């Protein structure tokens, strides 16, 4: 059984890391990062069987691909605090000569990253490829991916969604972060996504939902449930409802903090709502 209390502490520290990273360079994407903090915490601390002694090929371990690369602050914080690279390196986020580029990349050799992402809509195809590679290698481990909801407006996703179901890529769990926000406003005002459950099901996926993606226990239970649904001839889609900006009251329920950093005062407010647990970097 997971120690939820300990994991909550981890998540709170990750939220501090997110705020401090984007504040320092006055750029980056805190909103989606905060909303996916529980997801990353659950995935890396509880759900995935992964090896922090990083190897690109990742044979015999679960793999994760971040398609919506702009939420790099949460990815970097969780990778660092899981042991992939020194936590102090979070200090270099978005700075010149850093391995922590604005959007994640393999190019600077940061452990834990297996593909560049940032230009949206490409991650599911890559995850499918990695899943097919595992099948060819008779590797029983799983492939996880995360996608923004607005990102599903990119057509390549639907090519990938069609392919994965038609070809029974059933070692893949793709989670969609349903926060209903994108840069220009809500997904409803920019380009409504319609009934995503019905769409994924119509394409042939096994679809499940996590009602509150900011409830750590729900996320862990949901992803573990998703794991039990693999190997049954269908790819698994997890529709995870989150609140963009979760954990910092003035950043919640709005697209305003999608890609904007807090000022000094706002940082202090945000940090006071997420007291230090594991120690700041």
């Amino acid at each position, binding site marked *: 059984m997971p120690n939820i209390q300990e994991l909550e502490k981890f998540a709170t520290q990750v939220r501090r890391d997110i705020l401090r990273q984007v504040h320092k360079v006055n750029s980056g994407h805190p909103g989606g990062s905060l909303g996916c903090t529980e997801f990353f915490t659950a995935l890396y601390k509880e759900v995935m069987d992964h090896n922090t002694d990083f190897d690109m090929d990742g044979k015999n371990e679960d793999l994760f691909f971040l398609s919506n690369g702009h939420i790099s602050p949460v990815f970097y914080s969780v990778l660092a605090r899981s042991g992939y690279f020194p936590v102090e390196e979070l200090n270099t986020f978005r700075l010149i000569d850093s391995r922590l580029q604005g959007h994640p990349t393999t190019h600077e050799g940061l452990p834990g990253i297996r593909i560049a992402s940032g230009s949206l809509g*490409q991650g599911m195809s890559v995850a499918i490829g990695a899943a097919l590679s595992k099948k060819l290698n008779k590797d029983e481990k799983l492939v996880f991916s995360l996608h923004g909801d607005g990102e599903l407006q990119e057509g390549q996703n639907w090519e990938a969604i069609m392919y994965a179901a038609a070809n029974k890529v059933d070692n893949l769990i793709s989670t969609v972060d349903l926060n209903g926000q994108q840069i220009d406003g809500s997904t409803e005002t920019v380009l409504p996504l319609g009934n995503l459950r019905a769409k994924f099901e119509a394409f042939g996926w096994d679809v499940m939902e996590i009602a509150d993606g900011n409830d750590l226990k729900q996320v862990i239970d949901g992803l573990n449930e998703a794991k039990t649904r693999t190997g049954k001839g269908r790819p698994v889609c997890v529709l995870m409802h989150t609140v963009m900006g979760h954990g910092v009251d003035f950043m919640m329920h709005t697209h305003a903090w999608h890609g904007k950093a807090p000022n000094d005062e706002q940082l202090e407010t945000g940090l006071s709502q997420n007291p230090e647990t594991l120690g700041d970097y």
Partner: protein
Amino acid sequence: MKKYTDTGKKDTRSGFGAGLTELGKSNENVVALCADLTGSLKMDEFKANHPERFFQVGIAEANMMGIAAGMTIGGKIPFTGTFANFSTGRVYDQIRQSIAYSGKNVKICASHAGVTLGEDGATHQILEDLGLMKMLPGMTVINPCDFNQTKAATIAIAEHDGPVYLRFGRPKVANFTPEDQKFEIGKAVQLQEGSDVTIIATGHLVWEALQAAEQLAEKGISADVLDIHTIKPLDEEAILNSVKKTGCVVTAEEHNFLGGLGESVSRTLAVNHPAPQEFVATQDVFGESGTPAQLMEKYGLNADAIIKATEKVIKRK
């Protein structure tokens, strides 16, 4: 001068298919992906021999590039197959981010390049692909000249760690290079030794360059002929050695003069050894329907065009 014999016209896409068939047998990590053009790309034999390593992705090239990038994780060597237009322009950002920037070991294999795919017309006749691909950091760009060389190149790129763009075509063209040739990525092949002009050609225009050199010899003009199958990395040493000897150059390619082999040669010369150059290439235009021979004539991509360019460039020395 050396004599080259056409052992029988063959399409370079079949050279790719033959190479892929051999790779299927010799390297179990090689996988092939195709976007609904298995027959056109001559991938049928690989598919028949290794159904478990062949991936039909449908008419979804962006997804194909992403899947190929992902398959490298776990040690596979993916060869993607579709027309050159759909291998490059249609999926540029997927190649840029998921393959080139991510440093993935994907082999992008592109048939029906240039105007000589013929009757389908300009929607399918990409003349910009070499430029698009050579501008990507880390991308190796190869455009072999005949069936035998395409087969050898296909086999060679599996041993190269990194993304490769391999370009070939639909028409049957002269097959004149040795069947057992060793293909060295980035190494020019000197086909003729001459002193008056350097003719640097790529793809099936290498054969046209040899024909031109023979006719030029009858006029008393001696041509150095280089087969540049690898446009990037470019064999600058071979080019400079030749141009230092001859003092002028003609480049020949089935591609827009913007962004092609000719511009790569120009840059090499401008930086190291400026010399007059003429470009046998398309002149910043789209193609059209027609037979390959008609199109090569109309767009100035044959031996006659190379001869005219040579006579012009020699006067500029």
